[in-house]
């Protein structure tokens, strides 16, 4: 058998696991591992400029490809810098394996240089974690880590490796385990057939049905089946922020995103439905609007999820189904095909009529700009037009994120990459890098704001090193827009620490300093031509600084403590 050191075993095991790319940053505790990377050519290592970006890039890679993202960081600050990205992946159930260096075993607990208790610090934000005790364990730990990260409800797994465990002088026989069975870890498979039948019966007898689908459908690769089921039933459907693309947004049955900044028709249909099929969703407070007692008052709630702990966590499910979305959707499709005639077509027709009335309100209408001022929504619409709705769009967090979610219109899963659960500013650019590595030929757009982009700006250097032709579209409103919006609406317009117009950098010069192309757009009449110019530069990173109307708010917006039907529709109108 081949004799390898712990460091070599790690890299070989990653390769045997099918890993093609890792995102990382070297440091003392991982130098043995980096030497093992230097001596091979099977795995590509991407050098980022900050460990947070390594985790976000691995995350964007995972979200856009469905494959697990892999991160390598050193001990101490390397590990703690990775924490925000691990938490981001954890909240959105993204498969990720993070390998962190650790001080030598004999030094652990001595407050050694660059020592931090990574297993302890990351514990609440990982699906599981390991600390390697001996080089011989490494292949099995890697196998276990990928198994846990990618199955069931996916999530990040940390492997912390003390420096002595990767010592090049200690060589041991290497073999990679084929299978793994963990007695304490089981993966929910098929849902309970009796429960699925009950759910389908409820759907078929519904008069005002609604389908509410989320990120779990995308993670579980169930989009096609969901689309098929929704079309067979002829029912209205909404997607969560995390679920955008799970159902084609250009389809007539799609009511748009729901929740805090959801469309009028989606939120109204949620409130008034009599049967709600929630699938791959977790009844998050950005959907239910915090007071769950007012949520869907008339609805029988059917909840499909792979994580039993997500069911009845906030909203009690009448028909809980624990299982993978694919298996449950397949069973549902079979049952629906047999009993489709039972659907109350007349009632559904009346329901659609009601929905069409809500839809006529056109809650996402954008008022034409005055004085050539650019509305942020118009920027997203223009990007959609130029990219023919076929780009991968990563976003940061804030108003621009909501505008992108509302206006881009995602027809395919894995195209919309954003930090939904944790809401991590700084996510967008590194995530767009991960997307570009997963899809080198695709158009990778990063929609950001002048606030968020400054949180992982250093990655412009990584983009130069690897020649990533990302298109960064910065909706520059010269303020922390979402904070300012809340201050406008709830704090009497007192903009406490949310503005900094006088100290913003000249982004065009800044990106030029990194060797990229910068374009500034200030007038609506220049918007489309400017964006076209940016997208035409296919092999360059282009930063488009778009000066948008700083007074714009994101609407609709849920009224705090209300039901889903309670929304602010514009600066002057409420439901």
């Amino acid at each position, binding site marked *: 058998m081949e004799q390898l050191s712990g460091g070599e075993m790690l890299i070989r095991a990653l390769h045997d696991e099918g890993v093609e790319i890792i995102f990382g940053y070297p440091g003392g505790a991982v130098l043995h591992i980096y030497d093992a990377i230097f001596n091979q050519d099977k795995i590509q290592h991407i050098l980022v400029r900050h460990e947070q970006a390594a985790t976000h890039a691995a995350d964007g890679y995972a979200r856009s490809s469905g494959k697990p993202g892999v991160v390598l960081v050193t001990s101490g600050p390397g590990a703690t810098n990775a924490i925000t990205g691990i938490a981001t992946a954890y909240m959105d159930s993204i498969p990720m394996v993070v390998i962190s260096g650790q001080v030598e075993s004999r030094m652990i607990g001595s407050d050694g240089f660059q020592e931090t208790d990574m*297993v302890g610090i990351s*514990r*609440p934000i990982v699906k599981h974690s390991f*600390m390697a005790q001996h080089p011989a364990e490494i292949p099995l730990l890697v196998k276990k880590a990928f198994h846990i990260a990618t199955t069931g409800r996916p999530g990040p797994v940390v492997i912390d490796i003390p420096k002595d465990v990767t010592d090049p002088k200690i060589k041991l026989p290497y073999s990679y385990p084929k299978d793994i069975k963990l007695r*304490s870890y089981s993966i929910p498979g098929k849902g309970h057939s009796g429960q699925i039948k009950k759910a389908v019966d409820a759907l078929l007898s519904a008069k005002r049905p609604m389908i509410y689908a989320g990120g779990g459908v995308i993670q579980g690769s169930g989009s096609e089946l969901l689309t098929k089921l929704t079309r067979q039933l002829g029912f209205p459907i909404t997607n969560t922020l995390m679920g955008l693309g799970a159902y084609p947004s250009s389809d007539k049955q799609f009511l748009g995103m729901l929740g805090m900044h959801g469309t009028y028709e989606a939120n109204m249909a949620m409130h008034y439905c009599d049967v709600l099929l929630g699938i791959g969703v977790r009844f998050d407070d950005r959907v239910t609007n915090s007071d769950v007692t007012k949520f869907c008052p008339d609805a029988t709630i059917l909840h499909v999820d792979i994580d*039993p*702990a997500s069911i*009845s966590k906030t909203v009690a499910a009448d028909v809980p189904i624990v299982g993978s979305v694919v298996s449950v959707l397949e069973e549902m499709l079979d049952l629906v095909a047999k009993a489709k005639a039972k659907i109350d077509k007349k009632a559904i027709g009346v329901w659609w009529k009601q929905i069409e009335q809500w839809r006529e309100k056109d809650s996402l209408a954008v008022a034409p700009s005055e004085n050539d001022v650019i509305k942020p929504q118009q920027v997203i619409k223009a990007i959609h037009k130029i990219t023919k709705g076929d780009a991968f769009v990563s976003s940061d967090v804030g108003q621009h994120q909501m505008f992108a979610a509302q206006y881009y219109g995602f027809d395919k899963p894995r195209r919309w990459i954003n930090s939904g659960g944790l809401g991590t500013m700084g996510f967008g650019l590194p995530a767009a890098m991960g997307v570009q590595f997963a899809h080198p030929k695709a158009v990778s757009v990063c929609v950001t704001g002048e606030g968020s982009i400054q949180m992982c700006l250093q990655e412009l250097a990584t983009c130069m090193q690897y020649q990533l032709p990302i298109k960064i579209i910065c909706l520059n409103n010269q303020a922390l827009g979402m904070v300012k919006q809340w201050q406008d609406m709830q704090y009497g317009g007192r903009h406490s620490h949310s503005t900094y117009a006088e100290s913003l950098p000249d982004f065009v010069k800044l990106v030029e300093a990194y060797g990229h192309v910068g374009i500034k757009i200030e007038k609506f009449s220049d918007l489309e031509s400017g964006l076209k110019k940016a997208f035409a530069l296919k092999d360059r990173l282009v930063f488009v600084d778009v000066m948008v109307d700083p007074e714009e708010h994101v609407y609709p917006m849920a009224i705090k403590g209300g039901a889903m039907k309670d929304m602010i529709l514009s600066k002057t109108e409420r439901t």
Partner: protein
Amino acid sequence: MRHIISVLMENEPGALSRVVGLFSQRNYNIDSLTVAPTEDRSLSRLTLTTSGDDRRIEQITKHLNKLVDVVKLVDLTEGAHIERELMLIKVKAVGPQRAEVKRTVDIFRGQIVDLTSSVYTIQLTGTSDKLDAFITALGDNVVMEVARTGVSGISRGEKVLSL
């Protein structure tokens, strides 16, 4: 309502901190906790008491089950069960108090396991209520030190918590 949850988990470093961490992370409370390896040295059995309504207990058991180190668990309070807690208690025993304490120990079926001319160390086993009652019966002014193990439990009859 008070629940006694027994958890069978991998006897590995970090397993206990994951269980305890889950409780603080999700704002669940732990009233008592006891843990030791089982007859199979690869497994530990952890028993904890907590309280909450049915929904909260359901969430607690679901989240415990999600922990990769947790193999199996049972909410003992869902069925007939035996619960015991062990207490070692050091009390003042001088003058007429000495006989009075001894009588109380006998009534509660405790044992004096160590003594000096002025101190008794008593061992008492029973439900938590019984241990509380014993302390009350002795009175605050004699109790010097209390060491309780926390509740351990097992279900009645043929039901077992094992692999």
